[in-house]
């Protein structure tokens, strides 16, 4: 047993915090310090969640808690291989630290959190809830992040957010990104989290995202970290009247990866898209968990999440939709589907609708199954080799989720990541 007492499982992280506290950004800022101390107290008292906690029933953090990570904040100056640019502007983080030398943020009101933490302390833990375990952990140890404000009416175009790990990393990385779109602003945020094979770090990013009236944020996350890495992300999102959060999460890497989004539609006619795909291979677990809060009338939410599993692997989908009493005329749709390519793969799917308003339209569905033998035979009967046929059908399965993404560049990034995963796991290109 690695857990001596029920509250002691975060001891490793607390120990690291004790050693780092004076060197973490904001150490001299009273408000930040208080947040960190509160997080330390919470973790000391409650620990990180075990599977007895309902929200973590299917995702066992024991391997993360057992892993021995190196101390964070190691200065890293080595060159990393940057993926080809998809946008003119990019914010690059290596091992959790902002790299001004690799980034270009021309014309954006953006800064590294480590530089401005004193100014933005009041924004921390206002959108993401400090009571969420991954937020608590991040609060304890966050070292940097992107602070970005898009001003009223400005279309900021595309921005890449790259979180890369260097080859040596066996550390923990806790970025905190604060993103705010003012009234009528627009942004396409293309995020990639990647690490070289063999990396065994923990990446624990937290996003606090505010979308003001009539603003539109497209946020596409491509998580393709090394198969031995851990990725535990938390996204807090608030959308005001007439605003849109158009999100897509691709979980395609990591030994254990979880992307948890808590989104609130706070004004009338706001829209949320919480789409995603998970590609899970031998020895991996991928978890997409969302909590969608319809708190205002006439809002719409759309969610399609697809999971492809091969080998001995596990996929988790937990999707909660809360429709409050005042959220009349809510239009909600949720679909999650799993394609199991192996008999040893497992999907746990938990849709959860909690509706208190009486005039709403909410539908949801879930399916799980193998590749359809009729479809496979049809392709093979036309001369298409079995491997290629399988690749075509897997792509087709994912297509339905990917094609929802309207931004062409974002869709290409997703296509490429899907293709890369499939070929990387012994599949044929299709």
């Amino acid at each position, binding site marked *: 047993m690695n857990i001596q007492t029920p509250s002691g499982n975060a001891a490793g992280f607390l120990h690291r915090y004790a050693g780092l506290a004076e060197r973490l950004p904001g150490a001299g800022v009273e408000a930040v310090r208080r947040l960190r101390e509160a997080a330390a107290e919470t973790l000391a008292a409650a620990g990180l969640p075990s599977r007895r906690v309902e929200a973590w029933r299917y995702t066992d953090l024991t391997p993360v808690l057992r892993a021995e990570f190196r101390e964070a904040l190691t200065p890293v100056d080595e060159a990393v291989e940057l993926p080809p640019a998809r946008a003119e502007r990019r914010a690059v983080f290596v091992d959790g630290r902002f790299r001004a030398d690799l980034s270009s943020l021309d014309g954006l009101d953006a800064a590294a959190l480590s530089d401005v933490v004193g100014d933005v302390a009041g924004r921390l833990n206002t959108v993401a809830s400090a009571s969420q375990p991954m937020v608590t952990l991040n609060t304890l140890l966050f070292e940097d992040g992107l602070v970005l404000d898009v001003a009223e009416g400005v279309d900021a175009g595309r921005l890449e957010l790259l979180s890369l790990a260097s080859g040596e990393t066996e550390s923990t990385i806790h970025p905190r990104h604060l993103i705010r779109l003012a009234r009528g602003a627009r942004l396409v945020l293309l995020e990639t989290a990647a690490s070289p094979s063999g990396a065994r770090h923990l990446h624990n990013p937290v996003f606090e995202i505010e979308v003001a009236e009539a603003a539109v944020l497209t946020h596409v996350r491509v998580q393709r970290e090394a198969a031995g890495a851990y990725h535990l992300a938390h996204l807090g999102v608030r959308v005001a009247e007439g605003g849109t959060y158009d999100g897509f999460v691709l979980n395609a890497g990591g030994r254990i990866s979880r992307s948890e989004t808590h989104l609130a539609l706070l004004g009338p006619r706001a829209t949320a898209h919480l789409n995603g795909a998970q590609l899970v291979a031998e020895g991996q677990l991928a978890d997409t968990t969302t909590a969608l809060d319809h708190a205002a009338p006439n809002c719409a939410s759309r969610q399609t999440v697809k999971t492809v599993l091969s080998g001995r692997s596990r996929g988790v989908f937990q999707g909660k939709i809360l429709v409050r009493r005042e959220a009349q005329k809510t239009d909600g749709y949720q679909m999650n589907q799993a394609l199991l390519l192996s008999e040893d793969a497992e999907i746990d799917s938990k849709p959860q609708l909690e509706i208190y308003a009486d005039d709403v339209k909410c539908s949801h569905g879930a399916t799980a199954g193998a590749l359809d033998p009729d479809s496979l035979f049809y392709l093979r009967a*036309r*001369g298409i080799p*079995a491997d290629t046929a399988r690749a075509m059908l897997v792509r087709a399965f994912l297509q339905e989720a990917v094609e929802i993404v309207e931004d062409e560049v974002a869709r290409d990034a997703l296509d490429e990541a899907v293709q890369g995963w499939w070929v990387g796991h012994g599949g044929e290109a299709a």
Partner: protein
Amino acid sequence: MLSIENLTAEVDGKEILKGLTLEVPDGEVHAIMGPNGAGKSTLSYALSGREGYEITGGSVTLNGQDLLEMEPEERAAAGLFLAFQYPVELPGVGNANFLRTALNAIRRTRGEAEVDAMQFLKLARARMKELSMPEDMLKRGVNVGFSGGEKKRNEILQMALLQPKIAVLDETDSGLDIDALRIVADGVNAMRGPNFSALVITHYQRLLNHIVPDRVHVLADGRIVASGGPELAHRLEAEGYAGVLGEAA
């Protein structure tokens, strides 16, 4: 030449084909007619190598090549084409991508150069015009949202593009109105020539008014029980299977 000798096959442990023997020489169109449950669809799936159709005896060769030893895709590359009775819908797989992938897979095994997207479009458009298919059918998912007639025309388009040596048409006439039937029949007739043969499986005689067969065979209880010229189809239409089968038995 397609040569089937004493073929026996089981589905779910039940013997369906019970010693079927048939030869279709190059350049000929043969029809197989039979009542429901005679084994017509089983024959087409057994020939094309579908899982679950277990061959328990006999042989099938195409120009001397043993088809039964081959995977479904190898049979297709060898020149066998099955036009499905119920073409499968493949959402998310674009029709153009599907057709080009199939064409290139077959061209590769034949040692022919692959066609690029532009060459393919040119080829496909020409064939589609002959089949009165709207061009947007290339952009849609394979058979997704196609009417029954469009699905069958899509089968014939695939046949025209893949240029098989022998096509097995499994009740291609089912669910077709007379106009669609004509288009499908024209598509098959356009292929006729010394290097193409077809096995037209049907329950009704009406398709054979449009695709006039060289030979007609009657399949009943897993065997060919009668063979003759096109007039046999007319007799079946007039006298019914019971009449002809009674005589054959």
